[in-house]
């Protein structure tokens, strides 16, 4: 059995004031001594998760275990956990010594021991002799080191770091990444690190937890997260990637982008899949030698490589290559089988329930949907708007609801929020080669997936038009 120091069991955090669910039924085990990174875009729930582990935030439901013991309701000052805050949170009215010794003084340690411990941690963060300095005389990088020292001096079992490097410049950030990693190796305690910076996560972590919309998308070692993303979100968020819709056409064969490629993922023939191709894995060839070919539409010099965009039919492929191309060039593209990563496409069908008004109309939140119920409910017919069974009796529909489902590609978006059956705000978008896949959050808090070939912006308010002929109906009793 693995030695877990922290276990989160079905943890949910809902904010009362706006009903926002920051963390949604999260389950997470963290092993002793690991360097774990919670990675995700802002608003994905990573900081809330960290705050619940620290004790600053209480879960709405669920349990947090430390060494197998429930600590869900224990206040932060009684947890053997210390935090390095995003903006350091050093006490401005104390000097460096008093800042670092804050926790030790509360534990009433002897003066001599306190002095020794403070100078030891100062040595560890390379700031020997800073005891008497005032916080305001320190640079951002130095303040960050003091914040780390102040947490470590208490010898916590777990160190929590909430985007600690976010306010530092790039060079300082890289240095600190290496130092933090070294500190972790030296101390052997558990580090839980929160960041939105995928490179930071890939550099430092033993294990990465990718989060989005309050849920874990994937947990794994950095190599797996990068090479074997579990879904389109992870593939899009970690590194650059081309994501295409495809279909399995045979054993280890997949068709996408107008070509058939060999791959290494064994998925059943006929399965609809998302195909992830990293820009650095695409091999540019002469047009006739490639599996597919296309026209170069843009070339950007990035220092180490060129970023080349090739249009092939309706699809667009971003390629990193050390050799330059010219805009307008015809090129071929080839892929090694292990450069193709297959994700079994998620079922993104939107489903919702509507009330029955009469034989051919349904009601969804005050909007009318036309539907011939005689085709939905077996053995019924519609006469004068009334629903009757075979013997001519009226059918009682009061306990019945109609379940409507519609595919992402069949929903249309409109600028006019009143145009469709419902409306919402775009909260996520992923480019999938020849179209965009949007997540739209409706006013009722439901998320639904819409595919559209045109680019809309994040946070756009859109009306969602669902053509009745594209809807599928089923009875729900």
């Amino acid at each position, binding site marked *: 059995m693995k030695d877990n120091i922290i276990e989160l069991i079905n943890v949910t955090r809902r904010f009362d004031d706006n009903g926002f669910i920051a963390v949604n039924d999260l389950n997470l085990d963290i092993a002793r001594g690991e360097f774990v990174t919670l990675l995700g875009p802002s608003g994905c729930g990573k900081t809330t998760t960290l705050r619940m582990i*620290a004790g600053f935030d209480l879960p709405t439901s669920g349990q947090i275990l430390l060494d197998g013991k429930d600590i869900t309701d224990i206040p932060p*000052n009684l947890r053997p*956990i210390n935090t390095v805050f995003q903006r350091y949170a050093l006490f401005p*009215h104390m000097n460096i010594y008093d800042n670092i010794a804050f926790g030790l003084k509360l534990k009433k340690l002897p003066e001599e021991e306190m002095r020794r411990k403070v100078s030891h941690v100062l040595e560890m963060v390379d700031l020997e002799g800073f005891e008497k300095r005032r916080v*305001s005389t320190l640079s951002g990088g130095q303040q960050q080191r003091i914040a780390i020292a102040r947490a470590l001096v208490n010898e916590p079992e777990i160190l929590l770091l909430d985007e600690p490097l976010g306010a530092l410049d790039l060079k300082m950030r890289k240095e600190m990444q290496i130092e933090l990693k070294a500190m972790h190796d030296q101390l052997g305690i558990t580090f839980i690190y929160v960041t939105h910076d995928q490179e930071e996560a890939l550099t430092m972590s033993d294990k990465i937890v990718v989060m989005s919309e309050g849920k874990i998308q994937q947990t794994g070692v950095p190599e797996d997260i990068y090479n074997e993303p579990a879904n389109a979100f992870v593939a899009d968020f970690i590194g650059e990637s081309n994501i295409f819709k495809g279909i399995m056409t045979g054993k280890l064969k997949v068709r996408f982008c107008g070509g058939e490629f060999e791959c290494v993922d064994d998925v059943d023939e006929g399965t609809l899949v998302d195909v992830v191709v990293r820009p650095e894995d695409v091999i540019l060839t002469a047009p006739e030698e490639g599996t597919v070919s296309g026209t170069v539409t843009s070339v950007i010099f990035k220092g180490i490589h060129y970023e080349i965009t090739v249009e092939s039919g309706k699809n667009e492929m971003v390629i990193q290559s050390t050799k330059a191309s010219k805009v307008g060039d015809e090129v071929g593209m080839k892929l090694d089988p292990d450069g193709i990563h297959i994700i079994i496409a998620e079922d993104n069908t939107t489903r919702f329930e509507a009330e029955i008004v009469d034989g051919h109309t349904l009601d969804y939140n005050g909007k009318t949907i036309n539907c011939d119920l005689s085709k939905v409910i077996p053995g019924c017919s519609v006469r004068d708007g009334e629903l009757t069974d075979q013997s001519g009796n009226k059918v009682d529909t009061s306990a019945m609801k109609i379940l409507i489902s519609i595919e992402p590609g069949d929903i249309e978006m409109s600028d006019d929020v009143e145009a469709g059956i419902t409306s919402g705000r775009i909260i996520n978008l992923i480019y999938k080669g020849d179209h965009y896949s949007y997540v739209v959050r409706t006013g009722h808090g439901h998320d639904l997936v819409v595919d559209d070939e045109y680019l809309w912006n994040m946070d756009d308010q859109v009306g969602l038009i669902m053509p009745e002929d594209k809807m599928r109906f089923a009875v729900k009793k």
Partner: protein
Amino acid sequence: MKMTFSRKSLGIPYGIFLFLFVVAPLVVIVYYAFTNGSGQFTFENLTGFFKDPNTMGTLVYSLFLAFVTTCICLLLAYPVAYVLAMGKLKLRSVLMMLFIMPMWINFTLRITALKEILTLLEGNLAFYPFLNSVIGMTYDFLPFMILPIYTTLSKMDLSLIEAAQDLGADRKQTFTRVILPLSMPGVISGISMVFLPAMTNYVVLDMLYNSTYIMGSLIGSYFSAYNWHGGSMISLILLALICIFTLLSSDRQEETRGGNNL
């Protein structure tokens, strides 16, 4: 060049004001304070102030009245400001308004109303002159204590409080070791906004029939008796006291001021 000229010239009106109504009167006060009736230089006004048991008695009474008023204001204002700033109150702005609103009602009207209430409670205002003065001043000056404390508390970086808890401080320790010291600038500016006016604002005493002199009424009495020299010296001594207090408290503030927290 043109730009700098026009910018500087914007300060000219205030410069004139400053000279006419701040610098010039101060010079006149200093002149009167150190001269006698025949216009000769003298320290007599100064020594007279400290020798006269009446003036010293007034000073002590004023200091004591101001001290008690300030303490009560502080004891009332801090919890209110704390709850307003730290609590998750939906009606925060409404509550804040309730505490500030008395400032918008005419001072005379407020004290007159208070007078009626106190008369109703005590029968005769003359029974408790000191208590009535303290109540009147507290009523008058409370918002000036609440506001600065509220402002420093509500601007406080919440992660500092979380950091204290994170490092093992319970609620009481978090308050005494982090919140209270960090709110000192607000407390000090609240004190200076209550203590100094409370020493001199004799209108409250007058209206509540407290016939004891405080510093304000003392100065007034000197001037109405045409003793401009003695009156000026008392003003100057008060000014010196205020200066000393301000310097001391700004030193404190320098120490507690929030550091470079980005």
